[in-house]
């Protein structure tokens, strides 16, 4: 990768991720409306666009709703203190940065996956950045419970990462996302480590950030949350669902990069749906119970499964 190519690539990646996030938010709204037995946004249309073909359908689907929402954020009361602004920006950054080191696809026969920058410690980088994000969200909304919850979920994720990368290590693959995905060429880890997958999913279900601001700060924070959901789905698909592999047992079918990206995208969509499903089943969880469950059940289970896994390998 030449240096002059880096900036456009990064910008393109950010753009793609943000648009994905915005429309993921729309889909979440639709699902939420369905679950609550009501209709979702279906009245926003664009001026001068109304007479054109499909405009009615697009309007009915609420395609323009996110645009209206974003525009609305700019006319609302804005956050005034610099501390708030910096915190929100930092939270947003912590949600965005992990995408730069995570692969999204691979061409057949290529040595490098599709990735913005492949660094050695990408697993650890993602973990630390996420942890930092939890710290910032605690600064934003206050409350030690939240910080504790963030730390505990990341701890859970840490054990999960250890046990999947152990498998990659045994197959003498590099300890990166790419290595973990390549280790799943034959069978996905969701089959060989179902407990690990469950733990990872629980960890992803539990990271959430309430939003106390209004205006653009609110928008950024919300967007950060959506990014975290997207990131969680990406993590889960890479760790347990075989990343861009089409089917367990089959190597990469076809040859195209597009195909591998589509495979990964489909898996992510599935995981995101599951996450939404859980979220709308359990919209509010009591913090003390979450922590109790984490420390009494999930983290011991994670340690146990790590031990069993490592014993199995040797």
């Amino acid at each position, binding site marked *: 990768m030449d240096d002059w190519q880096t900036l456009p690539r990064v910008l393109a990646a950010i753009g793609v991720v943000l648009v994905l996030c915005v429309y993921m938010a729309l889909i979440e709204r639709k*699902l939420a*409306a*369905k*679950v*609550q*037995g*009501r*209709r979702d946004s279906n009245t926003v249309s664009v001026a001068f666009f109304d007479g054109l073909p499909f405009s009615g359908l697009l309007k009915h689907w609420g395609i323009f709703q996110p645009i209206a929402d974003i525009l609305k954020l700019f006319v609302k009361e804005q956050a005034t203190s610099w501390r708030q602004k910096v915190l929100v920006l930092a939270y947003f950054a912590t949600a965005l940065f992990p995408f730069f080191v995570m692969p999204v696809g691979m061409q057949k026969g290529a040595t490098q996956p599709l990735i913005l920058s492949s660094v050695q410690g990408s697993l650890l980088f993602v973990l630390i950045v996420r942890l930092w994000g939890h710290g910032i969200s605690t600064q934003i909304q206050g409350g030690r419970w939240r910080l504790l919850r963030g730390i505990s979920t990341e701890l859970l994720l840490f054990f999960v990462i250890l046990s999947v990368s152990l498998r990659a290590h045994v197959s003498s693959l590099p300890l990166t996302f790419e290595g973990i995905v390549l280790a799943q060429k034959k069978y996905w880890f969701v089959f060989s480590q179902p407990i690990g997958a469950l733990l990872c999913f629980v960890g992803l279900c539990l990271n959430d950030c309430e939003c106390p601001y209004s205006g653009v700060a609110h928008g950024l924070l919300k967007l950060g949350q959506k990014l975290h959901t997207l990131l969680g789905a990406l993590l889960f698909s890479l760790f347990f669902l075989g990343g861009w592999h089409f089917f367990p047992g089959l190597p990469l079918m076809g040859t195209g990069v597009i195909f591998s990206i589509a495979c990964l995208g489909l898996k992510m969509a599935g995981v995101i749906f599951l996450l939404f*499903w*859980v979220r*709308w*089943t*359990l919209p509010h969880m009591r913090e003390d119970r979450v922590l109790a469950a984490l420390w009494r*059940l999930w983290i011991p289970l994670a340690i146990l499964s790590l031990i069993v896994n490592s014993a199995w390998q040797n």
Partner: protein
Amino acid sequence: MAKLVERRPLKAWERLNILAFLKGMRTTLRWLLKRPITLEYPEARPYIPDNYRGTPTLVKDIYGREKCVACQLCEHICPAKAIRITPGPAPEGFSHIGRAPAIFQIDRSRCIHCGLCEEVCPEEAIVLQKEYSFSGTDRNAMMIDKEELYEAGGTLPDKYFKWGKSE
């Protein structure tokens, strides 16, 4: 008699709430597959049954004559004091009736749609009908006078013609 329900302590596996969680997931999924139960309100209107208690209106008989005799029973029974009646003389040729309302006002912003006025009226002259949605820019817009009440009421085709005696 109140019935006492023994609440047995939960077993260990029950306290994990796995079954409860799965049931919750099933409920959410079921709703996800259902059609929404809400209406697209201003475009789609709800079904209104015939005995619905909407706004009170004044009705005329099939000859187009006003049935109200200004007895003021409705004014007295109205719990919200929404009705104001000023009796006046009956129109020409109907002197046996005695009175008719000169002014008949209903304050829609006070009316609680209880239906007592309809129930008490000896002439079946005031009827609660299906209209339920009004808007106005101030309180005076909610004050409905006689003409508007008759306009909203229309004709009630019933078989009693007390006023028809003079014919």
